[in-house]
């Protein structure tokens, strides 16, 4: 198109938007499937609220996180609605960066929100973000391989059982590995999983005085178990496998078991995207010494930054996008497997959803058993199952993740890796002023 043609067009568009007199709110969101559906329903929202126009900024998770953090930390005021994770919400709320959401309309039915999710987004009893979708972790397994080996899945598998089963199923000659787990270093990648494993082995990130316990016997036992399990029965090159890579491996039939996000269930169960859709089994995340913190909790939420100049319109939007009616709308227009999961009890009571998603009960159970306020055997000073709600955690988590990655790759022993990790976390915490 020539520039001379483009200019009048743009001019016309500007005029049109002036004529409407509507308030425009800018919504920043992640480009995961559920959010793309939300963006696709813009017309429905604007039809119901003709005085509000939506403007979208849709970005990949890491890019979005950097973009939003820059804006909110500088009070930039570029966004009216931000999509943030459970990890950021309490930290940002404490900084007074987010608008408190205490007078939600009756019709919103706040009590319908799943309690663990609601707790994770509250600070001193007030909500600071509304959950758009939520997830926990659980175990996927191949029913055909289990049947062939004569294994019966238990209602609550333990990690010892998993190791035993992995040894029976493991068949590298035929490109089938006993178990796939995350190995790619990063606070949101391997450490999401490793933290839950440490929790269930009885460990914790910090003691009550914020001293790290990375080289404690519990951590050593958990990480040694993980490294042995993966070296014996895992796929080669596990250190480069994150969520996506494992999902691809499992859905192409290369893993006997996989412990990861509940949000993968819909895709694994969809025959268009998965070769194992008809032989897919579900089980709760395995436990070791304690069920506490054995499965993680994460949700993507919608929040309003304090710097927004259209807070009321923004609130109208976020209550719409996280409402029961919205879930109903997605169910009717996109199909019930596509509704955003893990936020409301009513979703799981809905017979249409139960019929479309046979894994619904496992997901609900996983989310309800994850308690971010009580996720470790010994008491801990932090909120979060697989994360610690302090700003330093992103750096700390990634440092430790890299050292555990090195141990998994065999570059150093587990003990050496954890000792090194301990020293590095101690230094970070001291610099941040948690102790002298």
């Amino acid at each position: 198109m020539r520039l001379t043609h483009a200019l009048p067009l743009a001019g016309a568009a500007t005029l049109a938007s002036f004529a409407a007199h509507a308030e425009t709110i800018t919504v920043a969101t992640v480009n995961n499937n559920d959010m793309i559906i939300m963006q696709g329903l813009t017309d429905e929202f604007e039809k119901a609220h003709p005085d509000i126009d939506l403007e979208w900024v849709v970005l990949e998770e890491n890019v979005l996180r950097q973009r939003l953090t820059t804006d909110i930390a500088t009070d930039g005021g570029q966004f009216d609605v931000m999509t943030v994770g459970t990890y950021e919400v309490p930290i940002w709320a404490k900084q007074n960066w987010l608008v408190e959401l205490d007078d939600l309309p009756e019709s919103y039915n706040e009590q319908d929100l799943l309690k663990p999710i609601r707790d994770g987004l509250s600070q001193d009893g007030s909500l600071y973000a509304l959950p758009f979708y939520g997830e926990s972790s659980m175990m996927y397994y191949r029913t055909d391989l289990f049947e062939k080996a004569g294994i019966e899945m238990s209602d609550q598998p333990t990690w010892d059982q998993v190791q035993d089963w992995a040894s029976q199923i493991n068949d590298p000659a035929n490109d089938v590995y006993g178990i796939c787990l995350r190995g790619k270093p990063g606070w949101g990648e391997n450490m999401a999983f490793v933290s839950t494993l440490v929790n269930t082995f009885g460990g914790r990130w910090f003691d009550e005085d914020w001293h790290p316990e990375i080289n404690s016997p519990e951590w050593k036992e958990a990480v040694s178990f993980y490294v042995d399990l993966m070296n014996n029965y895992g796929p080669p090159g596990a250190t480069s496998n994150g969520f996506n890579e494992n999902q691809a491996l499992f859905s192409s039939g290369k893993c006997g078991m996989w412990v990861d996000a509940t949000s993968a269930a819909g895709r694994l169960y969809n025959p268009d995207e998965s070769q194992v859709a008809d032989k897919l089994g579900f089980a709760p995340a395995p436990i070791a010494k304690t069920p506490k913190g054995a499965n993680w909790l994460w949700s993507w939420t919608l929040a309003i930054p304090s710097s927004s100049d259209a807070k009321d319109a923004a609130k109208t939007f976020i209550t719409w996008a996280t409402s029961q009616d919205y879930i109903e709308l997605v169910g009717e227009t996109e199909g019930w497997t596509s509704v955003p999961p893990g936020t409301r009890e009513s979703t799981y009571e809905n017979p249409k959803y139960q019929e479309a998603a046979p894994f619904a009960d496992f997901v609900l159970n996983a989310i309800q058993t994850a308690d971010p306020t009580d996720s470790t055997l010994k008491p801990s000073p932090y909120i979060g199952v697989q994360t610690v709600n302090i700003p330093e955690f992103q750096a700390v988590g990634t440092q430790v993740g890299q050292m555990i990655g090195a141990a998994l790759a065999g570059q150093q022993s587990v003990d050496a890796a954890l000792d090194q990790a301990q020293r590095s976390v101690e230094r970070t915490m001291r610099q941040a002023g948690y102790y002298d």
Partner: protein
Amino acid sequence: MNPTMTKKLLLTLLAWGIALIVFFPIFWMVLTGFKTEGEAVATPPSLFFEPTLAGYHEVMARADYLKFALNSIVISFGSTLLALIVAIPSAYSMAFLPTKRTQGTLLWMLSTKMLPPVGVLMPVYLLFRDMGLLDSQLGLTIVYMLMNLPIVVWMLYTFFKDIPKDILEAGRMDGAGTLQEVLYLLLPLTLPGIASTGLLSVILSWNEAFWSLNLTTSDAAPLTAFIASFSSPEGLFWAKLSAASTLAIAPILIFGWMTQKQMVRGLTFGAVK
């Protein structure tokens, strides 16, 4: 076949080979844009398939391509124009009236390119916030102008240095002032060089993704932000991403193709004398 013929043939083959290797990813991207999501990730990859416009439909439905494209055009050409206006006088003075600090100044200018941009993100963001330049075409134009200025000055400097001083002196003898000297002698003589410098600056601005993603939200977002909204770690979106990328590079690819004669002439300018 005589040895020179063989050599020529080999060189031609080599050139074609390299050209094909360089062009293959772009070719594959264009091809993938016309596939379904399933075909896009099929192994082994399929070269022959029934083309579909589904990816393009979806991309166009989700984002206003024209708005992004217009922003890209205005910002990259605007910043290039600004950069040339500033760089031509400075390159002129450095080439024809050098002082003992000229070399140092040139190196110092280049050293600003060695700083990772993220290091100054916060201060720039705060400055932009206070000046109301966030998410504005003007703001991004200024940043791109500053970003490309060192390279533009360097390139123009080398082109200007190749012009014999005598020619300018002859002009001065005929009564030309500095402005006329630049306008009627220097610029016509170095036009291929200036054109290729401008083209390079346009392309660099077109492809820049860090500042465009961080300083714009919706009103001034260029095509790099458009592509970024289609790259996702969850699910299979290769066909859509390829369609979006094809749309994003199409204008600059066509522009580059139309101007390749000037570009090649400019880049080899001086070397063939």
